[in-house]
């Protein structure tokens, strides 16, 4: 009968060998426990690594777990090797990605409508980068394709789930448009056409 300690130890070994985000379900099946229990153990492990300030941390992506380096050590890692930073996304790509991430599942025309410009090319680029994927079709007229973000997106942005995206409310507050609303005035209230 595996104890909590041996299960957690097994999970560490599995994550180490697997490299990619390890599905809690697979790990749970291997140990003969259920997924929620396995997730608990993974989270416990993650806490332990954090509390002990280890150079390797555990990251959760979409119910999967993976070893990553601690962000504090980035500069030190750079002295052994220069990690290639992925090419930055263009402003257009970021805008489109933000729309897809926050409104998913979303159609191309919805994206176009927010940006006020056709986004086909940009969307294509994001799909090629593996950040955006098709998510079936909308039931609207013409059954347009729906788009959503991928697991690679979560990994690239270090997010557990899409719910962890920077809060949309904070952004709205930051824009301060709401105050302006009160100043709306009607400049011209009447025009006497009979004169």
């Amino acid at each position, binding site marked *: 009968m595996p104890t909590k300690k041996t299960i957690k130890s097994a999970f560490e070994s599995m994550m180490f060998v697997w490299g990619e985000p390890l599905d809690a379900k697979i790990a749970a099946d291997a140990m003969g426990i259920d997924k929620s229990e396995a997730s608990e153990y993974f989270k416990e492990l993650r806490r332990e690594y954090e509390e002990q300030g280890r150079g390797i941390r555990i990251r959760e992506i979409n119910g999967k777990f993976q070893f990553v380096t601690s962000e504090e050590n980035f500069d030190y890692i750079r002295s052994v090797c220069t990690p290639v930073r992925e090419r930055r996304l263009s402003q257009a790509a970021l*805008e489109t990605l933000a729309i897809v991430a926050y409104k998913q599942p979303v159609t191309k025309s919805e994206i176009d409508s927010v940006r006020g410009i056709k986004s086909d090319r940009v969307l294509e680029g994001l799909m090629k980068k593996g950040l955006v994927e098709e998510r079936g079709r909308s039931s609207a007229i013409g059954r347009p394709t729906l788009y959503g973000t991928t697991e690679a997106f979560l990994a690239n942005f270090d997010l557990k789930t899409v719910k962890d995206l920077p809060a949309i409310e904070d952004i709205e507050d930051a824009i301060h448009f709401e105050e302006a609303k009160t100043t709306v005035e*009607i400049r011209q209230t009447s025009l006497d056409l009979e004169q």
Partner: protein
Amino acid sequence: MSYKVKLNIFEGPFDLLVYLIENAEMSIYDIRVSEITSQYLRHIEMMREQDVMVGADFLVLAATLIELKSKMLLPRIKADGEIEEDPRAELAQKLIEYSKFKKLAAALEEQMDFAALKLVKPKEDLTPYTGEPDEYLLLDTEHFIAAFKAFIYKKRKNEEILYIQNRAGRERMSVAAKKSSIRRFLQKAKDRFVRFRELLSPESDRCDKVVTFVSLLEMIKSGLASVRQSGNFKEIEVTFKSSER
């Protein structure tokens, strides 16, 4: 191959419009339509002067602005005294929505920069663990000896073939030499014909025979010799034709 050259910083018509509004320090809810419209049109004109392809999307917004401008001139009080909705409301809503996502895009960019500090070990090649297990040699001595013999036999055969190949290469180089030696031989025989077998030395192997034959064919082609054969597998009689004739 197409080249995309980006000359202006505006990602779309909304981007440009929001920039102009912010620049003029206007409230998005209270756009001075006339002022903004002329600025917007001026900007599009500028883009054209710089040979920038102005997308249709920019023109659509220009049309919307002009429409708004005209609507602003009309009274907004209906017959029953009710005030109509501000015609700018829809555009304002769109611009706010756009600005929101522009801000979110900036937040995402920050998040991405932060995430880039965490490194992941790339998945290693797991085939040593998952691939086919190594094959064991389940052989007794006899099998082993037989296998070794087969190997030696194959090796010897290969060497033999290699030797023949090398020789064939060498002999082929000497067709010209062979031709002159045949010629000398035939000249000595004067007008008498010579049997083909006389051209071959007793120790000549298959390779030498072939080279001799090929040389002879070439001589026939260039009119230096003629041959006659009375029937299949009979002697080939070769006669020399001196070039003077």
